């Protein structure tokens, strides 16, 4: 299975939301990273064929998805960023409704809904109205609906937003387990989520892919540019204004700063092993990121 994005572009009037992006996605987990307004959601909506590109095309195994119609949607699972629900429906009813829209016969749907409610720890609230749920529970209902048809292509827009750390870890494990021979694309602001599960990372800025690679590859690009510097508390503010500070940790009367800089920022600074966060900050700067 191969999902190819070919010079995909989307304009809103004069504003360019996605600017001629191309990529070839094969089974695996893809993390889409980028600041707000980078074009992640627009790209994901075009991948789901619910937003018409201004130009360019998306192909699944060589066939254009817009022309594939229900055959494409049949292999697609999608969780939008702004996920809504019908207030009168319970979790089980909502999932059964979406299962009906996915064309799953009622006897199969009942079994699948039950499985997913258990998998996402929602079985105990299956018969409660979704409007009474917490943000994290609603998000899990959203993830469950995306998984209903066991999709070959799973697109999740900010799936970890609203989830507590325990739920985030559970979701990460679930996605890793699910991926296998499927294409999973998830967008997030949370670099650590991508770092934990993504096989490939696509970094977007101003509608374009500015970086693409595995986590070690991207982190490796800033090797020799990440430093740790211990300074008195009084100097912390100065350093924050002067350089990109990725992390700030108190240690007695001093603070330990993790600095992203092309050159050695001070004689006492020691080089450290880079992580994906550092690569992201190197390209966007602490304020922009």
């Amino acid at each position, binding site marked *: 299975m191969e999902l190819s994005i070919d010079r995909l572009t989307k304009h809103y009037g004069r504003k360019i939301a996605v600017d001629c992006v191309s990529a070839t996605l094969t089974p695996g987990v893809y993390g889409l990273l980028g600041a707000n307004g980078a074009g992640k959601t627009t790209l994901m909506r075009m991948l789901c064929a*619910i937003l018409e590109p201004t130009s360019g095309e998306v192909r699944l195994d060589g066939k254009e998805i817009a022309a594939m119609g229900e055959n494409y949607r049949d292999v697609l699972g999608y969780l939008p960023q*702004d996920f*809504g629900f019908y207030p009168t429906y319970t979790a089980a009813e909502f999932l059964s409704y979406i299962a*009906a829209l996915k*064309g*799953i*016969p009622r006897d199969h749907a009942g079994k699948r809904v039950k499985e997913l409610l258990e998998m996402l720890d929602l079985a105990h609230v299956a018969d409660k109205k979704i409007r009474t749920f917490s943000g994290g529970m609603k998000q899990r209902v959203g993830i469950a609906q995306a998984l209903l048809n066991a999709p070959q292509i799973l697109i999740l827009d900010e799936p970890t937003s609203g989830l507590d750390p325990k739920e985030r870890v559970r979701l990460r494990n679930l996605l890793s387990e699910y991926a296998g021979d499927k294409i999973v694309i998830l967008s997030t602001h949370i670099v650590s989520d991508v770092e934990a599960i993504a096989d490939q990372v696509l970094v977007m800025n101003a509608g374009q892919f500015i970086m693409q690679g595995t986590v070690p590859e991207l982190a490796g690009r800033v090797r020799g540019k990440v430093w740790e510097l211990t300074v008195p508390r009084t100097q912390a503010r100065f350093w924050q204004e002067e350089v990109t500070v990725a992390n700030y940790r108190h240690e007695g009367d001093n603070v330990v700063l993790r600095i992203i800089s092309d050159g050695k920022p001070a004689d006492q600074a020691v080089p450290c092993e880079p992580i994906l966060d550092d690569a992201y900050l190197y390209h966007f700067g602490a304020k922009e990121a």
Partner: protein
Amino acid sequence: MSDEELEQRLKEYFVQTIDEYTRPAQIEKTATRCIAVMRKQADASAEPRQNFWGFLSEVFHFEGRSLLLPQLGVLLVTCHVAWTFSMSAYALPSYMPLFILAVMPVFFKGQYCRVSEVEAATRTSVAQLALARLILAGAGALVCLTFLLGLEVWLQRSFENLGRVVLYCLVPYLACMTAMLALIRRRRKDDAPLCMAIALGSVVFWRWTVRLLPWLYEASALGIWIAAVLFYSLLLAKEITYIIHANKEVNMYGVVD
């Protein structure tokens, strides 16, 4: 055949067989066969999918009440008014947009509850969902209209004007339904309030025609009504064709940008 000879022959046979099955063309042929078998197995294990009629039944299960009960409410109000005030057939057109108003929330709820994106990414898509809702709403309206016409005949104790009354009911209904579908196709945030305004405006307009354009309800104006029914039927057919096309190919129908 001696043991040595047999051993030699077997060795030759194995070498020959291995050589035959490791030739690139043979490997390719075997791989093609394996892929075909695996695809066949995958197809057999794939979950079945509903056809449109099965889907229609599911939509009826989930949305039947929301589509039919409000229409029943409008029917009861119309019947009550007709019965109490001996309403003339000319007043009927002004009640027809209310049947559209009654089903409107179901058509727009996806936009308001922010579910339309999820619905659009499903196999059936928003377009097929709209088509199923349209069929159910239309069937409900047909039953209500038949009941209303029956009541009208019973009140007038005559079948004489039945054909004209059918036209009086169809024109506003088709016009409002077409307007609603055209608005959904437009995919803007103000679609629902605009649709509501059109339906309510139609109620006022048709009441106004009874008082200010009485000639419109004379037998001589029948041609205008027939032309109007044909015109709106064509527009409605165009909207339905668009929905069917939207379901087959692109899938942006009804999702607000």
